[in-house]
Structure formats: C-alpha cells, structure tokens
C-alpha cells in the first residue's frame, strides 16, 4: 500500500466536476483507493463519498492506493492534482 498527501488548490475545492474526474480516474484501477480528510475516510471510487468530504480549497487529503496497480493509480491521481483537474 502506498500513501501520499495532496493539497486541494482548485478555487471551488473538489466540487462536482473535479470529484467526478477523480472518481473516473480511480475507477480505472483495480487498487482499493481511500481518501482521507482529517478524520473522515471515503471510497475514492464513490463520487458521493468524495462530495461528502467537502474538500474545499486549501484542504489536505491523504490518498492511499492498495493493490497490484497501486503505483499507476497514484501516478494518475498525482497528475490530476498537478493539473488542478484541468480547471482554472
């Protein structure tokens, strides 16, 4: 299992569209993907779970990937954050 911390830099936070993008990306992989914000942990393949996190601009998320393709999964997620989810 690998873990990495990300900061949400989108102006509106992880709202519907970036959340959708994150879920779509996560769903491409077999690995189990969890996303933690403070005490709350949600399934990275659940858009409702992600929205419930209410990850606003500036919040920090710890994402863990666990499975045979965990590295590829984390790479894809990392580039999403790096590109600000194709926004702004």
């Amino acid at each position, binding site marked *: 299992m690998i873990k990495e911390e990300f900061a949400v830099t989108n102006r509106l936070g992880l709202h519907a569209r970036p959340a959708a993008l994150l879920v779509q990306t996560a769903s491409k992989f077999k690995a189990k993907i969890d996303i933690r914000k403070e005490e709350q942990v949600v399934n990275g*393949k659940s*858009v409702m*779970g992600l929205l419930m996190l*209410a990850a*606003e601009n500036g919040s920090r998320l710890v994402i863990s990937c666990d499975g045979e393709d965990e590295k590829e999964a984390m790479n894809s997620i990392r580039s999403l954050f790096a590109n600000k989810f194709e926004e702004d």
Partner: protein
Amino acid sequence: MLIIKGIAASPNIAIGPAFVVEDEEIVINQLEIPKNKIRMEIQRFKRALEKTNRDLDRTEHRALKTLGKAHAKLIETHRLILSDPLITKEVLRRIQSERVNAEFALSEALEAVNQAFEKIEDEFFRERRHDVFDVGKRLLSHLMRRGKKPLSAVEVPSIVVAHNLLPSDTLQLKDARALGFATDLGGKSSHTAILAQSLELPAVVGLSDVSQRLKTGDTLIVDGEQGLIILYPTPEVIEKYVQMQAQLQLQDKALENLKGLEAVTRDGKSIQLMTNLDAPEELKSIAALNTDGIGLFRTEYLFSNRTTPPSEKEQHEAYFRVFKTMAPKPVVFRTADIGGDRITDLGFEEHSSESNPFMGLRGIRLFLHYPELFKVQLRAILKTAPQGDVRILLPMISSIEELISSKKILKSTMDELAQEGVPPVKKVELGIMVEIPSVAMALDTFLDDVDFISIGTNDLIQYLLAVDRLNENVAYLYDPFHPAVVRTLHQIVETAHSKEKPVGICGEMPSDPKTTKLLVGLGVDSLSVTPRMFLRIKRNLRSLSFQEATKAVKQALLLTDSASIRKLLIT
C-alpha cells in the same frame, strides 16, 4: 365563493366534496421479499438502473444540443452518482440482507446519504445533495410505475380534482365513487373529457391550477353545461344548482322518448348513428340505447394495466360478447392503437421512451413492428363472427405500404384459420382511419384497397393544425370549424364517395352537438358518438334538413374564418 372558468368537457352538474389527486406523490412502502424472490428484486433494481442510465444519455444528448458542453458535464456527475457504490452496492446489500423491496432499500440508502450531506458545513457542498436526489428520483420513478394516489382510494362520493388524468388512471375509476371531474389540464377532447362522457359524469377541464386551490373534502360545484366550477359555494348557489340538476334530469327524460325513433333528418335522409365502445362496462347502456351499431370499438382497454398481452382466447371472449350483444347490428373493431410505452409493460423488449409519442410507434406502426401481436388480435376478431361479417379498422395508417403489409398479414391469418378448420367468415370488411393528413390528401390512392373509411377527428385535427389538444396554452387553437378542417373533411367525403366508399366519422367532433349540421351537410354516412351524447345527437339530426345543411356547407367552404363558419353551421 370563487368561480373559475374552464372548458366544458362533459355535460351536467355535480355538487359535492373534492377528492384531490395529488400528483406524483411518492409513497414508499416497506415490503418483505421472500427468499426465492430476492434475485428477481435485484434484477428489477438493475433494470431500473439501466433505464435511468438511458434517461441520462438522452438528457445529455439534449443538453449538448441546447445548453452546451459545460452543462452536459453535469450529466456526467449524475451518471457517476448512479453508478456510485453508495447506491449500487448499498442497495443490493440492503435487498439481500434485509430482504426488503428495491424502492425501500433505495430510499433508505438515499436517506443515509442525505444525512451525511446535511452535516456538511460548507453550503456549496451541502447543496450537491440535490444532484443525488435528482438521480435518486429518476431511479425511483423507474422502479415504481406510478407515484399517484390511486383513485380507488375515493371513499365517499366525490368530485375528482386532478392536475391531469391519464388513460391508465381511468380503469381504477370504474369502481371509484366519482361524481364528476375538474382538472387543471386538458381540452374538449382530452382523455378526461372522453372518460367523463363515457361514464356520463360532468367534467370541466383546463382550469389551470384548481388542483392546487382545493384540498380533499372542500365543497365544489362542477357546471359541465357552462364549463365552470364554483369553489366554496354559498347555500343560495347550491340551492340554485340543485334545481338546475333536477331540470336537466327532466330534459334527459324527454330525450328518452327518442330511443325508439330512427336517425333520420327532417327531410328523410337516413344517417347511420352509432356509438363508440371504450370499455366493456358501457355495453349494457349502449344496447339499451338501440343504436345502429358500434362505429368504433376501441380495443385498447384489453391491453391496459397488465404485464402480458391478452391471449387470443381472452380477446375472443371479449369481442364475442360485444358482437353477440349488438347482433345483427355491425361492430367496427379497431385494432389496438397502443403506444410503445405499453409494449415495455407487456413484457416485450425494452422500448426506449419517446419524446413525442403522438407521432411515435403506435397503432398500426406498432402492430407491423410486432406482427405476432397483430395476428393474435386479428385471429380473435375473425373468430367472433362465424358465418357472419366482420369489420376491421386500422388506426394510424400513413402510407399505402402499411395498408398493403396489413392486408398481407390479414390474408395469411385467414389462411391459417382455414387450415386449422375454423369456419370462415362470410365477409371481412377492411377500413382505415383517416387521421393523418397524408392519407386525407392522397385518399384516392388508398380507396381501391379498402371497403370503408373512418375519419378520426381527434388526431386529424391535431395533426392538421399542429395543436396538442392536451396543452392548455394552445388548446384554444384546436378548432373543428377551422376552414382547413372543414375543407379537408369535405375533400375526404367527396373523394371517398367518388369511389363509392362509405365514410364514417368518429372521435370527439361528432359527439359535439354543435357539429351535427356540418357533418350532415358534408354527406358523412355514419356518425359514431359517445353513448352519453347519442340521444342529443339524434335529436339534432331529426330536427335538421339535409338539403339546408348541404347548402350551408357549400357556403361555408367559401368562407375564410372559423367565426363565420360557426355562425352558419352551429345547430
């Protein structure tokens, strides 16, 4: 007291408490699913998911066209919500472990999500729950066939007040205690109007927001004569209406005397006066009217509110009862004019919902698409008249190819029956509905292949004038006296008569006493009217002069506006 003006849809007066049909009220009951049915319940849920997904595809398609890419993206989110494990996995888990029905499992899962969302402090994120609800509602609507409070729940005799009544609501009404109807939507030939007339109940439609203004139990008066309703009437007004009710009953009694008399004009021209038959319950009262036959047997009711199509035996029994009751008078069997939505209910392949079902897969189009359904109905009809004659009427014909294909199927069905040793019917008369402008315009090309025609006025006028008669914003444009309608009807009758084919007319137009002079003057050979209006139309007919009516129509054909035509022709 408040008087609201609407459209008079069915005559007479009703006074009583309202029963308000709440629209789209979603009531979710918890049901226990037996162990051996769990798999079916899961399948049902998966089918609803698929249907909702297709809904989303269509919405996305529309959004892309009209709103642009950014909006269409939202649908993407909705699709993810639909496939979210919090819905899919969680609902399946609940169905399996708690053995509850899919609707309940879904509503519980949604409620859990809702509670989680409510705790979110950030308003922006909290409001995303509306997207979840939106998707949840779509999904629920596919699980539950209808969310309406059933009309069978009417306990005391009441006036049914609704936003709109659908054909599927009507079957429950038979045993319900309705005194009359008042609806927000609808025009003179809406389903509510047709239903009310066949049940002989007063109705006023097109009242815009009456279903919002009343609650169950409020007293109101439905004045189907003047087309208005009175909310919270004063005792004086109630008294006045009670007296009017009594007077109308007296008039009805006077009409009773016409029962034994012929349908013939003052100057001796006989016109076949028949009735429509919409439901078997009407048969007894139609027989008592002593009509010239059934001019339009709408067989659709046999296909309503069920999950498998009616068998040949079931159809045959229904048709034979009608045939026997009416014999030796003719019965015109119209093959079912059902739409694609019904096909899914009847357990056939999934049929995608149509955005414009009036112009969609219905009537003969549907039967040519599913010839096995068509054949079963034809067999049942052909078997009803051993040694006699049978009249079959095809709805929604728009091209000669459809007529030829239908005739081929009819021929092969007859051959099949002959091979099986079923005694052949002596004569089969085949007719088409003239209800699509293409047929009206090129009628001469169809006439060699038919024995008679029947003008379906509801659809013909609707398609000719491009007016949805259920749309209260444009219902005023639906006008049987429009010069184009009068001229089209004239052209149809002339063309058919030049080839010596008889012309019948059905739909709501002939049931409107105001049109009798026009129809007689056009030279229509038979009128098929609702049983309720039968005697009134007969009274009209008997007071008319055929010669005068013909002359008036000739003049009307030269006029340019509806008002002048009405002035000339309204009886």
